[in-house]
């Protein structure tokens, strides 16, 4: 009896796997394989060019992290970036979504306009912003016109990262705005009606109904934001032409990984260790975030 059913179960499982095999092959080959390979690399000293060699060095790559000043700077920059960008973009997305859901005239038009930055490639955006950030560019001309001090956004180490932050908040907030917009449609009107009957004003309705109702979505938005911001690379790469300058101010972890993997020869193993560390940091941040916002159901 038992043998028979397990045989059947086995056959069914085999069938299932067979059907999944195209997807499995792709996943294994392009996602799980590389992940395992990075773990493997991070414990080795790797020379890929010329005489290929993999020397097992145990935790040396990770030890090296401890006294690498640039790695610390990169971590700190990335951390600063995340702490500022994630709350800002989430808040901005929420406000934008709420405004565009309020039934204003021409809101579809504004929805499209606001969404445009997200559709633009980040490389193009960065280049355009670099023009605007130029010492003689639009933003400085505007500041000058208003009688405010002008800045060397691209060359001043104290400002460069902030310039990237502003640009990124501007360009990613609309993406999350769309997610919020979709979620706003799901909040039943009856809740608002009930609140109105109780005499709630617009602000109270927003704080006491909209925000709590959107909590699961907010949690999703924050997690996606965390992952995205921790992986900042392209903007700072273009901004600094790959160097992370001026004065390491735009050096992010992923940029450092890139530098060690491709710019200096023979440090692929160390780059893998850094990437591995970043993955752990992101994982921890996500777990902490989940702890804070408990009972979520979206993912």
């Amino acid at each position: 009896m038992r043998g028979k059913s397990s045989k059947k179960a086995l056959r069914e499982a085999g069938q299932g796997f067979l059907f999944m095999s195209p997807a499995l092959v792709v996943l294994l080959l392009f996602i799980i394989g590389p992940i395992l390979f990075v773990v493997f690399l991070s414990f080795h000293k790797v020379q890929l060019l010329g005489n290929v060699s993999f020397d097992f060095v145990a935790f040396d790559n990770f030890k090296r992290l401890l006294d690498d000043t640039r790695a610390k700077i990169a971590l700190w920059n990335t951390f600063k970036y995340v702490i500022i960008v994630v709350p800002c973009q989430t808040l901005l997305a929420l406000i934008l979504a709420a405004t565009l859901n309020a039934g204003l005239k021409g809101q579809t038009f504004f929805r499209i306009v606001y969404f445009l930055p997200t559709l633009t490639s980040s490389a193009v955006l960065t280049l355009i912003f670099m023009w605007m950030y130029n010492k003689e560019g639009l933003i400085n001309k505007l500041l000058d016109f208003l009688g405010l001090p002008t800045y060397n956004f691209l060359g001043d180490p104290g400002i460069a990262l902030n310039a990237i932050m502003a640009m990124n908040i501007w360009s990613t907030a609309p993406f999350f705005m769309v997610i919020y917009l979709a979620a706003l449609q799901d909040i039943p009107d009856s809740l608002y009606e009930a609140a109105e009957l109780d005499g709630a004003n617009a602000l109270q309705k927003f704080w006491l109904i909209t925000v709590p109702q959107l909590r699961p979505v907010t949690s999703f938005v924050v997690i996606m934001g965390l992952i995205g911001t921790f992986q900042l690379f392209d903007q700072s790469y273009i901004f600094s032409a790959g160097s992370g300058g001026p004065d390491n101010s735009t050096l992010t972890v992923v940029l450092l990984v890139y530098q060690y993997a491709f710019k200096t020869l023979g440090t692929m193993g160390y780059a893998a260790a850094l990437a591995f560390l970043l993955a752990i940091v992101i994982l921890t941040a996500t777990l902490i975030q989940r702890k804070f916002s408990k009972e979520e159901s979206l993912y």
Partner: protein
Amino acid sequence: MKRKKWLASLGITSILAASILTGCSGSEETSKDEGSKDGSKKVEVSLAGWGGNPTEEKLLKQTLSDFEAKHPNIDVKLEIITEQYMDVMKTRLIGGKGPDVFYLDAFEAPGLIETGVIEPLDEYVKKDFDVEDFEKPLLESFQVDGKTYGFPKDYSTLALFYNKKMLQDAGVEVPKTWDEFREAAKKLTKDKVYGYGVAPELARMFWLAQSKGGDVVKDGKANFATKEVEEAIKPIIDMHNVDKSAVEPKEVGVTWGGEIFGQQKAAMVIEGNWAIPYLKDTFPDVDYGTAEIPAVGDKKSTMAYTVAYVMNAASEKKEAAWELLSYLTGKEGMETWTSKGYALPTRKSVAEKLGYDKDELRGPLVAGAPYATVWAEGSNLPIIVNNFNNQFMSAFLGKTPLDKALKEAQKQANSEIESK
């Protein structure tokens, strides 16, 4: 019934898997085909480099078609890699799909030669190739342990570019010494025009950093946190922060020295040969002259940047690759390539024939060649440069004292080198 289903699913997946696999193997077959042609009539040699301006590209293509006309059995496949040349090249070499012949900057050469992916060329060289003809310091930057790994195709040194009108208006002579230069820059600075447009990076200041007897790199390690180096580069920082006579391109909204000079936001810049065609094309109205870089003390110095043709050690067509390489760096090929002055010839005989030493604008560049420091200094230079540039920038902007910045940069660079 069940079995049939099972078979059907097996069939579908195997078809899918097969289609994926054929997708992969397809490309492999074609590349093998190319290889098998090797022995027969036509050989295709691939040549990779970064693009230049349209005129340069035309010159290169002309040189290549001259070569093909002389060697009917060799086809040259030119591949132009416009962005991130070294990243692309390293990745391709790792993947075993590197081109047969390619450009290599002297700056990157030691690191790449160390890994053994570059073919030593000594055994290919025949007498009529005339190795002695090359400018020695340029050739030496591609030699390791007595073996030659590449032949320089062209070079440029740095020279002082000055705006004739601005100098005349300010009543300043073309500066001959570093002190005169600093004074001149002060006088030339007025209403939104700066005296000196500076590139605050090691590649451009290496000669200056070494001018007081310091060694920026010693035994493959960073060694610039010394009194000599600090004293030598201090003037740049003082010109920016004290005299306010020097400016970095980004501070006035441009990207590099040629542009700051062309837009007449700086009266003097120190640039190379590449700026001459750029100024001619983009800012034809600027009336300027060139001179040798002002001497520090009584010692003249400048930088030389050079690029060589090298051969991939994994190439399957080395004989044909050498034919191409030796033509391109030979007297004839080099003459065509450098005929328009976009690049300066590394062979003495070609230089003499083309007479750039008598050219009004290029003369000072050529004059610098004998005493120039070649921009190459062992395989750790990229690490040293990155750290120097980052920290120097903050000293340049007056955020950190110079000695502290140099110490920090040296410490970080050496710790990176040690744990390599």
